[in-house]
């Protein structure tokens, strides 16, 4: 009996106490491991990897047509499948959220291009002032700075693509904006100095080629009503810059002795001097909610003076060796975006125009003048109507079908532009964002 008692007591000790000791040790180890995991997690939370891929099928109105819907079509080609964008972005934000660094690439079948390499520092005292430097978006206008992954249409308008190709440039900017919880967070002022030669692309290194720097600034105000039913914003942008030319001669719009419009000589001693570019723009957005769904109206107007070449109105990525042409331009776009009630469908109608030379009108294009240069295809105005529908599958995936009706200015005197070109475009796109 004694033996049995001894045995039962020993068994009880083994069953109750030993597991308790073991549990205590396990609990200490678990707490330490958990603490280490939490600490590692905090560090990992500072690094964010995001990105999006856009694959698309396009059907062009004619083979080999020029297009701003993801690049011109190769000869004999009117249908294509392409990877429009393949963005991978990594962001590191410090623990106090006052500094961050961004690195973004675009990897497609055309190669790998660096899109963003920038850092941002916010003052730790009142957190109103931030300095951002590196390869970054130019702070001009709404469309240029609006992410392609968020865009309701496949591409930015023709004007944005010509005036600000690849959207980015090398520079440094000061951002003034009150903290998120402050009374003045709705107002934002950005001003910066940039190279002016744009971002690198598959065809251009975008290295600086002169001593001149461009000043870009933007002020935006954005508010939502107290009942959270209406949101509105307005913005004004200004660009003052220029670049060195390797040619003596520049042309501007004018008339010859018999009154024929075209380009006439402006200056003849320009070599190694600066040619100025100036733009100003205004934009607005208005979003409201109704039983039909959330509606957004968006508009932007830009005008300015662009020094470029006879063959293009895009800015130079190297000092021009041929004549410089000064053109006064303007352009605008209008969006109507309607989310259809509580469905995941979003409809969009967009109208935009780009007039690269507001002095060149209709039959003046291509008319030969004495002692000057004719207005050419480069000076033709384009008006584009776009209609699209997007199926927002979830926060990652969306499908977009979009059709561009493109109408060009015609002239009886300009060969190839006596009637509207066959350059409409259908795009079917799938986007995955993560």
């Amino acid at each position: 009996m004694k033996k049995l008692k001894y045995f039962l007591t020993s068994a009880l000790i083994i069953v109750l106490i030993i597991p308790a000791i073991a549990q205590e040790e396990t609990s200490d180890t678990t707490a330490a491991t958990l603490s280490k995991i939490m600490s590692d997690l905090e560090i990992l939370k500072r690094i964010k990897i995001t990105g999006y891929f856009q694959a698309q099928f396009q059907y062009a109105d004619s083979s080999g047509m020029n297009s701003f819907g993801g690049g011109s079509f190769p000869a004999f080609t009117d249908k294509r499948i392409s990877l429009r964008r393949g963005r991978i972005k990594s962001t590191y934000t410090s623990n106090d959220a006052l500094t961050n660094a961004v690195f973004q690439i675009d990897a497609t079948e055309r190669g790998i291009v660096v899109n963003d390499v920038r850092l941002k520092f916010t003052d730790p005292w009142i957190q109103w002032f931030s300095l951002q430097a590196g390869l970054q978006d130019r702070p001009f206008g709404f469309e240029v700075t609006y992410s392609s992954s968020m865009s309701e249409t496949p591409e930015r308008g023709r004007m944005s693509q010509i005036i600000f190709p690849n959207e980015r440039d090398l520079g440094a900017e000061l951002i003034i904006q009150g903290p998120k919880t402050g009374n003045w967070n709705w107002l934002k002022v950005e001003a910066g100095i940039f190279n002016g030669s744009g971002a690198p692309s598959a065809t251009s290194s975008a290295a600086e080629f002169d001593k001149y720097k461009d000043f870009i600034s933007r002020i935006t105000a954005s508010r939502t009503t107290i009942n959270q039913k209406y949101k509105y914003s307005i913005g004004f942008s200004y660009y003052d810059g220029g670049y060195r030319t390797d040619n003596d001669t520049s042309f501007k719009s004018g008339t010859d002795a018999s009154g024929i419009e075209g380009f006439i000589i402006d200056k003849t001693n320009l070599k190694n001097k600066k040619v100025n570019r100036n733009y100003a723009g205004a934009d607005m957005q208005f979003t409201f909610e109704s039983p039909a769904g959330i509606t957004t109206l968006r508009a932007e107007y830009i005008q300015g003076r662009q020094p470029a070449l006879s063959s293009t109105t895009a800015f130079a990525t190297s000092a021009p060796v041929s004549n410089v042409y000064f053109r006064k331009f303007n352009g605008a776009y209008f969006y109507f975006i309607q989310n259809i009630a509580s469905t995941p469908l979003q409809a969009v109608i967009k109208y935009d125009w780009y007039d690269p030379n507001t002095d060149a009108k209709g039959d003046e294009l291509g008319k030969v003048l004495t002692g000057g240069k004719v207005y050419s295809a480069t000076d033709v105005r384009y008006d584009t109507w776009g209609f699209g529908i997007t199926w927002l599958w979830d926060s990652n995936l969306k499908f977009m079908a979009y059709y561009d009706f493109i109408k060009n200015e015609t002239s009886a005197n300009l060969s190839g532009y006596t009637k509207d070109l066959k350059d409409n475009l259908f795009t079917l796109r799938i986007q995955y964002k993560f």
Partner: protein
Amino acid sequence: MKNLNRKLLIALCIFTGINSGINAQTKITIKGSDTCLPLVQKEAEKFMKSNKGQTITVIGGGSGVGIAALMDGTTDIAMSSRALKMDEKLKMQEAGKALKTAIIAYDALSVIINPANKVDNLTREQLDGIFTGKIKNWKEVGGEDMKIIVYSRETSSGTYEFFKEKVLMNKNYASDALMMPATGAIIQSISQTKGAVGYVGLAYVDASVKEIKVSFDKGKTFTPSSYENAKNKSYPIVRPLFLFYTNKAEAAAKPFIDYVLSAEGQKTVKDVGYIDVSK
């Protein structure tokens, strides 16, 4: 050995059988407002009792946290003590999520001070001045010469947003306001600090703090927060409490929401200290 293998096989069958049984149960996660938390927890307990096989997990964190979780797909239902902001609606839209809304209760926000403070009444304009930092001493509103110490909920809280919109007319809180992570912390701090003022849900008010009567008609009438005054709309600082869910989660969420809105669920609303939605 053969016998052992057979036993292992049987054990495996039983284990997987139990697991598949568990998986067949409906599991719902509800995340968000700390104001809604005690109510929704109670409702969930009662719902699970009468609906075997239903598992509901309720987690707090603030209205903003719940809404963000709904966008991310990490919760089935978001609890919120404020309506959705326009930016949140746009994000939901971007994610292709059609949102359903249910108002499950109303909550009166009580303005509270330390019991030693002699002030009894405050107008909306005076509250605006106090919480935005323009009024810094109790003597400016008829009290004794004593510094005002403002307590508020933190920015992710729906209560913070609602008080800012309704009482401060969207102006920002005083820069020296003390932001507290939970309602309980506000009650405790105010009960221990003579010059303190703050706001909490009616259900949280206890004898350790003193409630202020408020006026939204420039001092003509001062009303205390109470179930009756909130129900007859004579008390002005009343907000709806929401449950948000997406179309995709409707099948799982709807039975619970129907239960909360039922007579039994609304009785729980009253028992917990909130205002029921029945007329």
